[in-house]
């Protein structure tokens, strides 16, 4: 993807985010919150798990900028592929760390361990102040489940 295609993909996640809700999460959902004190943005992730810990549903609520919404949508896309299986907490922790690291590195190429859906976030590498916007939903995830 060239820069323009990456931008259009990012904007698509912003305009049509996956699994975004505006209603409160049902009481049986595990909920985690992420707040960016610099701008007041806040996101919440809601995870429905069955009695065996299998992921049934993942949604997010957010008041945030385009990058925050797009990043949240991307995480939901990742989680949607983990449905009906126990949440791989350690793997998610590794992904979060890899994403944080990649955002601070000059290389645009996505590391092997990161899913392709995250590639448009390479645009954020030139915007140091916006990395918090990317990571907000991941902090919410960390607050929802022990990682």
């Amino acid at each position, binding site marked *: 993807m060239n820069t323009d295609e990456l931008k259009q993909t990012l*904007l698509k996640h912003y305009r049509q985010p996956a699994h975004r809700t505006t209603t409160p999460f049902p009481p049986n959902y595990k909920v985690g919150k992420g707040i960016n004190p610099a*701008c*007041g943005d806040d996101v919440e992730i809601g995870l429905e798990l069955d009695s065996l810990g299998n992921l049934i549903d993942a949604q997010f609520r957010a008041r*945030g900028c*385009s990058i925050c919404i797009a990043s949240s949508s991307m995480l939901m896309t990742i989680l949607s592929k983990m449905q009906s299986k126990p949440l791989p907490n350690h793997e998610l922790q590794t992904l979060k760390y890899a994403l944080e690291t990649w955002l601070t590195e000059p290389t645009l190429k996505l590391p092997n361990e990161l899913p392709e859906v995250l590639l448009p976030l390479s645009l954020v590498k030139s915007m140091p102040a*916006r990395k918090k916007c990317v990571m907000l939903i991941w902090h919410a995830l960390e607050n929802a489940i022990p990682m």
Partner: protein
Amino acid sequence: MSTFSAEKVRAQFPFFSHHPNIAYLDNAATTQKPQVVIDSITHSYISANAPVARGLYSLAASADEHYANARSTLSKYFGAGNSTKCIFTSSATASINLVANSFVKSRLNKGDEIWLTPLEHHSNFLPWQRICASSGAVIKWIPMNPISGDIHWEKCDALFGQKSKFIAITALSNVTGAAIDIKLVCQRAAKASIPVLIDGAQLVAHHLVEFDKLDCDFFVCSAHKMFGPNGIGLLLAKTQRLEQMQPDILGGGMIDWLGHTFEDNQWSSLPRSFEPGSANLSGAIGFSAAAQYMNQLRQADVQDHIAYLGRHLLSELSNINGIRLLTAPENAKNGIISFFHDTVHPHDIAQVCADNQVAIRAGHHCAQPLFNRLSIQGAARASLTIYNTQRDIQILLTCVQRAIDEFAL
């Protein structure tokens, strides 16, 4: 006839030689520094650097003199005569904390009230929140319209009532640009014997302050918002109030005699008892140079220039679909213009601006009490000053429109 030229002023700021294309519109956060201020700081390190109030050698004595001269220049600039004292601090924030901890805290009892406006910056909220939490006192909000800045005087009986122990208010909002009628607040508070602190952080950027005529008890500001260096600020206070205060931060340079017990200690005389540690000599010299720089500008020209740009920007923004203004037309003259869009996040507006070398601020501007009250998450803010031009405004407007085209839902 005015001889003011923003382009000429801009040429006095070396920052713009390094960043010739930038539209720097974040002046409410911090201002750029003119060459004369930079030179004064450089010169202080080259020729005057020595400890203040400590050495016996001639250079140290000279440092004492430079420090005293800077204080004297700033006292005159801020209209603070013999009955007041000028304390150097690290910032307006530090000054407010000093007053909270050294003057107000010990005077509070359960149920007492500290009054603020809903416009306060966190720096003029958190210190009061803390001492209220520890004393059982409560924060009360002055009834007002936060957009216009008009106080609802007919609802202000309690503000000047028995339980009111302190009033701490901004003179000029860093979000809405609303100017508060601080003179009237001070007059009415004085009649009720309630001490008042004025947060002048934004006011000093374009307005002359006459501390003695204002008749407040405390006035705080930072140098970096008025073309001076970072890391230095002022507390102007009535001598009578300072004499009622106990030192808060303790250390060298603020004590005459160290006693066997804490109660035996003899603090230095004012103002040094409130300036512990090594003095920020270069900061004081730079701050003083900034005041002298502002003094040679004609205030009326400065205010006319900023008012013209502010009104123009506000008028143009109001014509853009979906833009909501937090700055009232009557406050545009103060050069702080905050706005948001129905569906475009302020960060996205600020990012498009940043991509095009336009520096604005986006977020809650450390004024969450205001944003909570308005039920708004955040806003974009352009803040104007003497070196801003029509070009800066035009490129900002282009960026705002571009952000809307790109991000509006």
